[in-house]
């Protein structure tokens, strides 16, 4: 018997995606269609076609020819852009959905954590939800009994055990949910991007817990966009792109390859991008950066004004209402540095023409020289219309941020520059007594 925990051979998963049908020409035609199509669908039902009701025509291979092996005790990071097939792979491995072709052999009990708090019921109390959620994740009752106190302590919700979860704050709910999940101890653990929840301190605690799990000799498959977390936790990496395995090996090499690939990706025009999310009410078409003289530039300069112009187009000719947009900047490790959100800075746009351009002005660009990825997002009427995770890379050149002629260089002096000043305190020469500012002195 080989000692692989997971062996995947030529795995493939095809999804059916709804295709936009040609618009009906006449009322008579569309009426006839409306009458006939239920019968067609019924025919499919009796033929046992699982996709009969959803107008599903075209197949899309979310995974294709995926083969890999994982040894017992290995901690593997699965890396890839949105839509690369990471989540689908985890779903197939955790038996939520069947593959269309190929086969996987898994040796050991599998626990999957694709979402935090699956099956939480708002009407049940914290205690009841711990049991319910534990059972849903595959824990035995006796196991939950044994770990109950540990879970409660980890979640820091002792006082609210008998309170229905609907009265919890969202942070508390997440903590409780993660605490249950973190105490799941199967031989093989599949984890999908669940660390992106909760406040920073709790995230750190979760990462620590994940590290503990990894260090007990369990096999872990871990999906994340956070390259810092991936490199810290995993020993090996698996890079997916368009549903295929592009590279496997030591985690540092795979992460490097991913980051290189990202730079190529970012130079493409936004119109051709398919790795976007949202309902498509409006779509981003292009991004242009303007320098302080309103001329097109390819690099921002630290400390100088920068204007970002976002082109968009709606999916029909009606004006769009209640639009919000944001642009977020990340370092190469995927950590968010800052973001500019229209609603925060000046309110959402009430009405916008069906296509056009929106500009965002940053009076003093705060990042030190380097290359930064940015993400674009917009919503119409509160629903995400478009989101492009790795929309592009912005090159930042050194500039006179402080107006002193001293140019900031690349890290390690810090990524973000903050306006500030230094000064000698006038009466700071008194010795041996606690200093109080003049304004606070009472006479």
């Amino acid at each position, binding site marked *: 018997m080989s000692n692989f925990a997971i062996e995947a051979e030529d795995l493939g998963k095809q999804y059916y995606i709804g295709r936009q049908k040609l618009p009906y020409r006449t009322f008579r035609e569309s009426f006839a269609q409306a009458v006939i199509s239920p019968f067609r669908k019924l025919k499919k039902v009796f033929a046992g076609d699982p996709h009969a009701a959803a107008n599903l025509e075209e197949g899309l291979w979310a995974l294709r020819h995926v083969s890999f092996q994982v040894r017992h005790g290995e901690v593997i990071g699965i890396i890839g852009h949105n839509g690369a097939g990471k989540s689908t792979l985890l779903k197939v491995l*955790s038996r939520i959905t069947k593959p269309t072709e190929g086969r996987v052999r898994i040796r050991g009990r599998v626990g999957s954590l*694709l979402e935090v708090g*699956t099956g939480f019921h708002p009407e049940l109390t914290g205690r009841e939800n711990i049991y319910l959620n534990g*059972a849903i994740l595959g824990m035995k009752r006796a196991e939950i009994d044994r770990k109950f106190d540990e879970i409660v302590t980890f979640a820091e919700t002792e006082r609210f055990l008998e309170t229905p979860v609907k009265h919890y704050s969202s942070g508390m709910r997440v903590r409780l949910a993660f605490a249950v999940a973190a105490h799941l101890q199967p031989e093989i653990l599949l984890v999908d991007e669940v660390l992106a929840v909760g406040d920073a301190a709790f995230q750190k605690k979760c990462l620590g817990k994940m590290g503990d799990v990894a*260090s007990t000799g369990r096999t872990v498959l871990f999906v994340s966009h956070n390259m810092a977390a991936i490199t*810290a936790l995993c*020993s090996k990496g698996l890079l997916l792109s368009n549903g295929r395995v592009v590279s496997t090996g030591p985690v540092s090499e795979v992460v490097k390859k991913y980051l290189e690939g990202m730079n190529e990706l970012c130079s493409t025009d936004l119109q051709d991008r398919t790795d976007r999310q949202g309902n498509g009410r409006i779509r981003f078409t292009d991004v242009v950066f303007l320098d302080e003289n309103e001329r097109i530039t390819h690099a921002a300069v630290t400390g100088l004004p920068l204007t970002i112009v976002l082109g968009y187009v709606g999916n029909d000719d009606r004006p769009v209402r209640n639009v919000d947009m944001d642009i977020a900047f990340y370092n190469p490790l995927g950590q968010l540095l800052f973001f500019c959100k229209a609603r925060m800075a000046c309110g959402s746009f009430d009405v916008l023409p069906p296509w056009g351009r929106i500009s965002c002005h940053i009076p003093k660009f705060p990042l030190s020289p380097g290359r930064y990825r940015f993400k674009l997002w917009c919503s119409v009427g509160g629903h995400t219309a478009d989101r492009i995770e790795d929309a592009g890379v912005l090159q930042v050149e050194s500039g006179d941020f402080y107006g002193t002629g001293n140019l900031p260089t690349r890290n390690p002096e810090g990524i973000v520059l903050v306006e500030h000043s230094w000064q000698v305190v006038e009466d700071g020469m008194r010795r041996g007594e606690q200093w109080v500012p003049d304004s606070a002195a009472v006479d």
Partner: protein
Amino acid sequence: MAVRQAGLSETVSLPALSSLPEIVIEPPRGWISLGLKDFFEHRELLYFLMWRDIKIRYKQTVLGAGWAVLQPLLTMVIFSLFFGKLGKMPSDGVPYPIFSFAALVPWHFFAHGLTQSANSLVTSANMIRKVYFPRALMPTAAALAGLVDFVIAFGVLCCLMPIWGLAPDWRILWIPLLLLLAVTTTLGAGLWLAALNTQFRDIRYTLPFITQFWMFATPIAYPSSLLEQPWRSIYGLNPMVGVVEGFRWAMLDSSPSPGFVMVASVMSALVLFVSGLIYFRRMEDSFADVV
């Protein structure tokens, strides 16, 4: 980084590799097993799901479990008024109120269980997309959770009977078997509708009609003695006819012994259940993709 190195050195409390269970994941093909073993291994989850359904059923209601009593009781009052008093419906020599109540007790279990289990997969869509478990647990738990209500309503029936000078005899021992027949019917129809409901939300809207139609096709407001014999056995192909007639026979000594009707009901309940299970298993693999 320290974490990673630690991972290689200390291997804690893992069972020997050879003792680990092996799972093979493959594309669905042709006929599949009914998955009863997997189902049995997840019995604890079944218990938790039932317990959840029972717990939340009457949360945030003033009357709480009182609804389990009120629902059949109010229906009985309405039936007695309109069918019994105004319609002069025959009731096999038993006072009409108790005649209809004895039928309403199993009927409410069935109708409620059917609705709950038919909707169970859709209302728990999120769980289905995020966690693996035998999907049949969901409709099963939803249907079985109604047993608590059944027990309460059955208790009420036993309390009401002395009012009309009736008392159950030894035939009450048949009740568990009749209940099993009701459970089988509920599960059979529930599995069918739950699986269909994942793809055709039409089911959600037809459910009230299905239960209403089924109710009139079952002798609840009227006695089945209104039908002549060859038709009565055919009528028994509706398994709820067997259940309801059985209940009246066992509790009230009113209906004639169900005999042929019962045979027809048991057979059709089994067909419904097995076909439902097979259809459910066939569609199960696509639930996470379509729900």
